[in-house]
């Protein structure tokens, strides 16, 4: 009799231990991104800046035909050009994403509490490429007099697809995991954009002059990647010393 009770006790204890472990496991998973050991530590931090360029003959932007939806067509008096490749002077490449792809180790970062906004305006996406953090709130706004559907096509996050009529309040969503997600509107097939999700704050999207700035980077050895929707990915390795400011150049070849 006593033996049986012992076994039952062992069994129940084992069950409890396992359940607790399971619970704790879930909590650890959730805790990623909520502790902020590296966030305050900006003393001695380095800065990485530079430029992204496109070498070779400069591409000619293609014109977008919005005739399929008269509501879109009416909004533009000037021709609308594709934003796939946009360049400035001296081959400066706009809308490339520069980010730390490796080297941050186990550091985790709080997502900012303020949301990022992805706007549908003039039947295009504003911005064309949006950078945001994992678990940060994403607000999708429709400023157009026509109905859009916002359809991200992630590989690593859950896919969703929501219709958004004119005048409706912004859709609030978030993405749990890091990746660069293509976004499209199936109603208006020319609408293409990207939402780049990072679990750390060290990313930048180049402006018209092709420049980028990664600030407050803790010293260390890093792999820096530059992504462009048409020209792919370039990689460089860099070592950042305390308080150092370094400059990098990324050159895509046509």
């Amino acid at each position, binding site marked *: 009799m006593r033996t049986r009770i012992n076994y039952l006790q062992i069994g*129940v204890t*084992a069950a409890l231990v*396992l359940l607790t472990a399971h619970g704790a496991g879930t909590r650890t998973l959730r805790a990623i991104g909520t502790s902020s050991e590296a966030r305050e530590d900006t003393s001695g931090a380095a800065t990485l800046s530079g430029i992204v360029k496109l070498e070779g003959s400069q591409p000619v932007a293609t014109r977008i035909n919005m005739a399929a939806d008269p509501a879109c067509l009416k909004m533009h008096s000037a021709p609308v050009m594709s934003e796939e490749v946009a360049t400035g002077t001296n081959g400066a490449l706009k809308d490339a994403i520069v980010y730390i792809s490796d080297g941050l180790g186990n550091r985790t970062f709080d997502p900012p509490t303020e949301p990022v906004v992805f706007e549908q305006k003039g039947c295009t996406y504003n911005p064309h490429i949006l950078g945001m953090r994992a678990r940060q709130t994403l607000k999708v706004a429709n400023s157009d007099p026509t109905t859009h559907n916002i359809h991200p096509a992630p590989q690593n996050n859950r*896919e969703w*697809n*929501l*219709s958004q*009529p004119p005048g409706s309040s912004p859709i609030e969503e978030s993405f749990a995991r890091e990746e660069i997600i293509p976004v499209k509107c*199936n109603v208006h*097939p020319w609408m293409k954009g990207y939402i780049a999700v990072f679990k750390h704050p060290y990313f930048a999207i180049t402006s018209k002059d092709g420049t980028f700035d990664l600030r407050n980077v803790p010293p260390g050895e890093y792999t820096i990647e530059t992504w462009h929707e048409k020209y792919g990915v370039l990689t460089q390795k860099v070592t950042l010393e305390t308080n150092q400011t370094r400059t990098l150049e990324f050159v895509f070849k046509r």
Partner: protein
Amino acid sequence: MKHNRMRAHFAGILVLLFAGVGQVTFAQESHIGGLTGEASRGKKLYRRYCVGCHGPLGDGRGENAPWIDPKPRDFVTGTFKCRSTPTGALPTDEDLYKSVTRGFVNSNMPSWLPLTRQQRADLVAYVKTFSSSFREEKPPSPLSMPSESAANQQSIQSGNELYQKMNCWSCHGKEGRGDGPSAQTLVDNRGYPIPPYDFSVGTRFKCGESNQDLYRILMTGLDGTPMPSFANGLTPAQAWDVVHYIRTLQMNVKRKKQTAENEKKDGGESKPVGAQPE
């Protein structure tokens, strides 16, 4: 006394086993009504009936897949068209069970009504093991569906206006013939062309044929396809109006009256595949 001790041993080992295996098997079950499906049994059925198209890894790359259009579902991504849950969410066990039972019209996926209810429940349990999503997340509760409004002229007229306003026509066409200006550009989440539904043909809808099914398709969207969820843009009353309007586009459809008998037939069982008539 000895006998007693052995029993105690046995009970103890059972409890230990249960404690250890409990959480592993938790995700490998399905619960459909009063039925509990077991993945271990489902695996054998899957190997017999499903593997040819969906593949041994459940990634939709079975040996028949290259010759099939639309392509077999990739279970690994955990993205499913026919759901009662919001867009971006996992389907419920019941949703998967209904899909297996119903089959997919205009595709190579047949109705698996010839399998018993228990077998279909077992298959659902096994299909869920292919995607880690089912271990990490739980499907949310299904979207609520208020009872259908009267399908009168006013409702149809309002549905017509919404069909224009919500840009349904961009893909499905002004007359619902699946020939809207964006129709040719549509692809599914694997990049394969996918045509929008042509209402004039009047085949069954992908996720069922009742007005309730149609309402659900509108509000949940068909994940993995260009069909969005309208849960944000339409009130339930408006969604029913769109349902009523869409029915007027189905000129060639002879609708079965929805009776209790048909309902029963849909969820019922028939003889196993290959069984000889008695």
